[in-house]
């Protein structure tokens, strides 16, 4: 209560005395984990993006049907060669500290993302040669080479414009008191405990903001998160475990929502990352095909994820417009898998499969272990915690490893960096010049039909060579009180608070 300032106290008192007391609408949101540093240039966690959605507006937003829509930029145009992007900016926008939003602020933020030594946005903005203000409310990006994915990058942290005043003052310490231009401003944070935001009175779209205060509480255990919602301590929870979905649906006081996410679940096969790739599975694609054929993807989605996940075989879910329809998700075929094994001259093949040690991951891995054993794979599971797994994958110290990806709006973000020869997160070290060419071309074209054709060609090759075996797509699962209205589930998993009301 120390935080309540005199004007606020005064206005509350005045409200009580003068009129019917206005009921302050608050929303308490239970998060699965605690965000890392709250600086859009430095942060790296998915959960951090959820908080930014309320605090930091971006140049571009993503609609629930995954279209890129205006936010701080009102319109944008590409030059004919695809190397220049001009954006018109919204008028009358202010940052939380009162600084005006304009072209200079955008230039300062993008340059900060490109030059701050601690910035984690450099890869995302790698194609940007320079940015300049071409008017008080217009900026122009000049690119090193055509990059159609840039607009999508600007719909995430790379496009969150921060107050130049605060950024200058705090530098790399910006996360201690972030100042953006979103509907809610930062009040306080206690690590592992809470993040408190309050309504920003000068928000450009303030008429659609119906909450006065938002509190995010990290509660790692899904069952406890749900119990807090049921007992009334929370109004809203995100990322419920599939095992809790049934309870949430059955509770008459709650609204349940889920949507298949943008990411995928997969297994990496080490095909070229150091000496550990020198094994039959890494060298012979027929064995990888056999492994993939032996997996019953539907069963995993139905059993381990209680029907909330969908089976998949590509970096994009079957519901995505980028899904290659000529490669449907096939059912399990043990006979064909055995035939492929025989063709490769292998009777039984030992495989070491790394996985992180969470219960649901283990459950899935044990299912896969049992399924592929029928085709002739003797899988030994090697479980470590996540940081170790990540380290071993990067270093190539693995034969096969389970990895998930949270997904990106632009298809490029789900595929390019994982399978191109020099891709930043290519831990299988798969390298095929033809795939590189297709994915580079897809990145450079602003014509969706051309891009789709390139992705289809690339996924066809990948589906044959299988450096990454995709097996499904999870859902984001939310639950909230019946008093909460106006929430629109989005495949990107974000909690957008524009239009959300809490009557309770």
């Amino acid at each position, binding site marked *: *209560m*120390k935080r309540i300032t005199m004007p606020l106290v005064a206005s509350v008192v005045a409200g009580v005395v003068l009129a019917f007391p206005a009921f302050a609408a608050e929303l308490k949101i239970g998060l699965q984990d*605690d965000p*890392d*540093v709250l*600086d859009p240039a*430095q942060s*790296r*966690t998915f959960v951090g993006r959820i908080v930014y959605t309320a605090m930091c507006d971006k140049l571009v937003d993503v609609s629930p049907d995954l279209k890129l829509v205006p936010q701080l930029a009102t319109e944008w145009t590409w030059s004919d060669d695809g190397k220049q992007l001009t954006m018109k900016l919204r008028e009358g926008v202010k940052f939380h500290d009162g600084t005006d939003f304009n072209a200079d602020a955008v230039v300062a933020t993008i340059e900060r993302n490109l030059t701050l*030594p*601690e*910035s*984690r*946005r*450099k*890869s*995302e903005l*790698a194609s940007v040669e320079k940015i300049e203000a071409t008017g008080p409310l217009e900026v122009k990006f000049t690119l090193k080479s055509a990059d159609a994915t840039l607009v999508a990058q600007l719909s995430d942290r790379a496009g969150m414009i921060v107050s130049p005043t605060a950024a200058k003052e705090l530098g*790399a*310490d910006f*996360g*201690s008191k972030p100042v953006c231009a979103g509907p809610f401003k930062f009040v306080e944070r*206690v*690590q*592992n*405990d809470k993040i408190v935001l309050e309504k920003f009175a000068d928000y450009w779209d303030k008429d659609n903001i119906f909450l006065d205060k938002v509190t995010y*509480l*990290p*509660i*790692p*255990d899904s*069952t*406890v998160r749900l*119990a*807090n919602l*049921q*007992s*009334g*301590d929370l109004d809203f929870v995100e990322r419920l475990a599939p095992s809790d979905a049934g309870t949430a649906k059955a509770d008459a006081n709650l609204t349940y929502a889920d949507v298949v996410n943008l990411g995928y679940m997969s297994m990496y096969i080490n095909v070229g990352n150091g000496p550990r790739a020198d094994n039959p599975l890494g060298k012979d694609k027929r064995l990888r095909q056999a492994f993939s054929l032996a997996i019953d993807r539907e069963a995993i989605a139905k059993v381990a994820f209680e029907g909330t996940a969908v089976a998949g075989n590509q970096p994009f879910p079957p519901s995505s417009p980028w899904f290659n329809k000529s490669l449907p998700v096939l059912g399990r075929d043990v006979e064909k898998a055995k035939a492929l094994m025989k063709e490769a001259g292998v009777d039984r093949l030992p495989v070491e499969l790394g996985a992180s040690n969470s219960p649901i991951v283990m459950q899935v891995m044990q299912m896969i272990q049992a399924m592929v054993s029928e085709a002739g794979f003797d899988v030994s599971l090697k479980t*470590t*915690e*996540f*940081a*170790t797994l*990540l*380290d*071993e994958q*990067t270093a190539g110290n693995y034969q096969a490893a389970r990895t998930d990806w949270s997904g990106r709006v632009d298809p490029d973000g789900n595929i390019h*960096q994982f399978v191109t020869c020099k891709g*930043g*997160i290519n831990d299988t070290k798969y390298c095929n010049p033809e795939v590189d060419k297709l994915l580079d071309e897809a990145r450079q074209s602003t014509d969706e039909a051309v891009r789709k054709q390139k992705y289809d060609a690339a996924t066809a090759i990948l589906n044959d060579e299988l450096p990454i075996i995709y097996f499904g797509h999870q859902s984001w699962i939310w639950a909230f009180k019946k008093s909460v209205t106006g929430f629109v589930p989005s495949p990107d998993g974000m909690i957008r608070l524009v239009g959300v009301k809490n009557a309770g």
Partner: protein
Amino acid sequence: MYAFIAKRLLVAVPTLLIISIFVFSLQKLLPGDPILAMAGEERDPQVLEYLREKYRLNDPVAYQYVAWLGSALQGDLGISLRTNQPVLHLIAQKLPPTIQLAVMSMVFAILVGVPMGILAATRKNTVFDYVASIVALSGLSIPNFWLGIMLILLVSVQLGWLPASGYESIFVDPVKSIKTMLMPSFVLGTGLAATLMRHTRSAMIGVLTSDYIRTARAKGLPERAVVLEHSFRNALLPIITLGALLFGELLAGAVLTEQIFTIPGFGKLIVDAVFNRDYAVVQGVVLCTAVGFILMNLIADILYVLLNPRMRAAL
């Protein structure tokens, strides 16, 4: 007495030094690269290199340790790799919930465990003794995370009596603070109460069968005086040792209990720090815990002296 305390505090210095060296080296043996963990999806080699330099991860381990020790002696425990917050600030934030949980659990454990142990000892091999033993064994065997979730579902969701989880500072809202902490300290306290009960019982049985107790009874003292004044005071010594050790452990954070009830204390801090290879935070928390442990031991020793006149003579 003061000389005794001073001597003990002096011995604590090398102990802390050894602990810090030990923890520092153990961390370096862990697989996993903190920079990769904190870089996330950004793999720009320049960024990774800059971060390695900034956090001195390129220096030899011995040099890193000396650098850490140097700043630690000046009161700077470094900054968290994960959140960029100073470690000292994090510790100051997490210490109050941990202490509150530890104190409340311990109070519960003592109020339940010690009387139960005394009663079980005086009624040895009766129905009460057996029931108490079964209850104690159950308290020890039921896993905290299970008991915690069951309690949340019953007390918070079904009955709506207490908040399901979270933390409120006792200085801000004492009533709410105690209410939120009731379930966690009960969960944590049951195991401790069981341990205390078993030890109190065996210590009491030992004392109750000694000669001077028979004498006390023979000269006609009431049973109440025999048990509480003559026996219990002598049985207290091992109980205090145990209690101090248990309390020291509580200060290190009760990981599972904190996780279930989402209490922002030491346990959660250190688990997160280990998973993220947040070296400075692990180092700082372990150091702080070690200090707590040493202090608890010292307090136990002082209580010994106060309770046992023979030890006063030995000083």
